[in-house]
């Protein structure tokens, strides 16, 4: 379970202070699929980054399965990002000089604990690339595949460590509507199959309606948290 209690995020740019998030209170149950919507600059990506442990809050608390992210040291936070969180970004963030297979293997490289053999890592990455339908392009580089295939690869990379929480920041933002829909279908499929908590940031209402709950943010404030039309019906 993810709990946000009076979360506040303030950025300082020189003498100027910008409040990106104000007193956000939100609880996300395990296995829930949530869409965070709002206009550009409203603070939805900031919220995602805070949940993902990429950024630190200025005030309040974020508890993930009872763990206070504020109190985690860098090593623990890295472990949290590696094992419990999967990130999917709008512009894929694949390493251009690595093959799709190597890109998917990256999070395994940072996994602590049991040392994995290269062959085991490769086998796991191949299985996931096949699962997301890019198995036939695994030895290609990102420049040689389509946007949809890049995002599928990024999704495979995000779930290789079997995280509990999958965070997607505008995952269809750089894709055409049809490809975008197929990506959302893939995320939904994985969400159901692995029972992951899925949090998608989007400004696309149609995509947001695929979620079980929609959280709306405006000017850094949580405006509304409601069940989506699809699920209300």
């Amino acid at each position, binding site marked *: 379970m993810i709990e946000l209690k009076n979360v506040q995020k303030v950025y300082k740019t020189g003498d100027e202070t910008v409040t990106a998030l104000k007193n956000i209170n939100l609880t996300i149950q395990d296995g829930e699929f949530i869409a965070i919507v709002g206009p550009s600059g409203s603070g939805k990506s900031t919220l995602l*980054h805070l949940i993902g442990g990429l950024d630190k809050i200025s005030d309040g608390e974020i508890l993930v399965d009872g763990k206070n992210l504020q109190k985690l040291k860098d*090593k623990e936070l890295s472990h949290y*990002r590696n094992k419990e*969180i999967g990130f999917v*970004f709008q512009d894929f963030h694949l390493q251009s000089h690595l093959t799709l297979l190597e890109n998917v293997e990256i999070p395994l*490289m*940072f996994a602590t604990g049991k040392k994995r053999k290269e062959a085991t890592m490769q086998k796991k990455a191949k299985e996931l690339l096949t699962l997301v339908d890019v198995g036939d392009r695994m030895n290609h580089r990102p420049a040689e595949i389509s946007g949809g295939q890049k995002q599928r690869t990024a999704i495979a990379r995000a779930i290789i*460590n079997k995280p509990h929480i999958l965070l997607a920041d505008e995952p269809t933002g750089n894709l055409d509507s049809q490809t975008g829909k197929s990506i959302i279908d893939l995320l939904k499929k994985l969400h159901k199959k692995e029972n992951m908590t899925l949090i998608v940031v989007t400004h696309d209402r149609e995509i947001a309606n695929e979620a079980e709950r929609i959280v709306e943010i405006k000017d850094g404030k949580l405006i509304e948290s409601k069940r989506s039309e699809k699920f209300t019906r």
Partner: protein
Amino acid sequence: MYYRLAIKNLMSQRLRTFLTTLGLTVGIASLVVFTGLSAGLRQAIYTNILNNGSLTELTVQGKSGGSSLLSLIPTSQTKSHITPQNMADIEKIPHVTKVYPEMNYGNVSSLQISIVGQTFQTDTMIFGMPEEYLADTLTTPELQNEWNNATQNYPAQPYPAILSSRIIDLYNFTVAASSKLPHLTEQELTGLDLKLLPDQSTFFNSVNANTNPETAKLIGFSDKTSLIGVTLPIDVVRKMNQQLDPKYQDSYLQLYVEVDSADHTDEVQQTIDKMGLDTTSTQQQIQTFEQNFRFISLGLSMISFVILIVAGLMIANTFFSATSERKNEIGIFRALGASRTNIQMIFLTEASLLGILGGVVGIIVGLVGEFVLNIIAQKILPDVTNKPASIFLDNWLTLLGIFLLSIFLSTFFAFIPANQAAHLEPLDALNE
């Protein structure tokens, strides 16, 4: 995976990798050449010193004396010679295994020699040495008999004679070179007749006397005999001295003292010094050489050090640039769970790979460089006695050390940029 990733990263920046490796390669290659040269020169000089006497040998001379030309000339200021009693006392010193005397004819003489169709005459000294001390030259029973029988057959001539090995170098690079005469070898000269003119000198008219010329046959060359004279069997010289002045017949120019172990030379040397005699040892010569050679080694090391520091700064610069350019990659890795240590490891692995590459290529380039430089050196340097086959000397431990140094330097200079990369805030890096 780190190495696979590092190789991919280095391959994706081929030109930068090449230039950085080139800097390191030049540094490592120069270090290989300089250490090889330093060790080679040391080895050559050691060989030269040890050819004149082993580490267990001491040379004993009369007080305030020496083996210089002037000190050998009999004048009123001549230093005290060594007596048979001195020799007997030294033989009794613990750890002394053998004492070999060297005697000189009590007056300056001249040597006349006919080679390459010309007759040369020069001032010379006549020395006498026992057969045992010249074992390196008198290797066959025939030569040994010839040496020993000369005493019994005295004054039958020609006497067997030995010259210093360096005399050929002296002839080849002074007389032959300036007069365009052919170079000579030991083999060509062995068996040559020598004409000795006792008590005759071109430089010291006062010593000239009407003595009969004596003949000798050159039977070999030795590193142990003096450069400034002809060496004959010691008893022949003793008998020649009897003819000249009986006071010389029982006085030695110097003694060569063999000690049972190099650990005891200091002790024996001190005992002899207390007897009022001067001693020098091969160990002392080596120590003096080491003191002087330290400056050469230091100079060569400083050059290598500066080159390696420049190469190291190039590596640091490369990784500072890489940190700046690869912020986004660092951010992605941090988002995917890389800890600060992981980020450091990624950069340091790349640096160590550069070190391995620079080390291997540098050592190969250095060894090839040594090979080429040695060919050039062999052509330029005169063919002197004991000239080494190579002026460079490498051993695998030094090369291994240089290889490890290459890896160490590379990772050392990449450490600060790697640390900087590791401390980037994940989100700031990701947003680059």
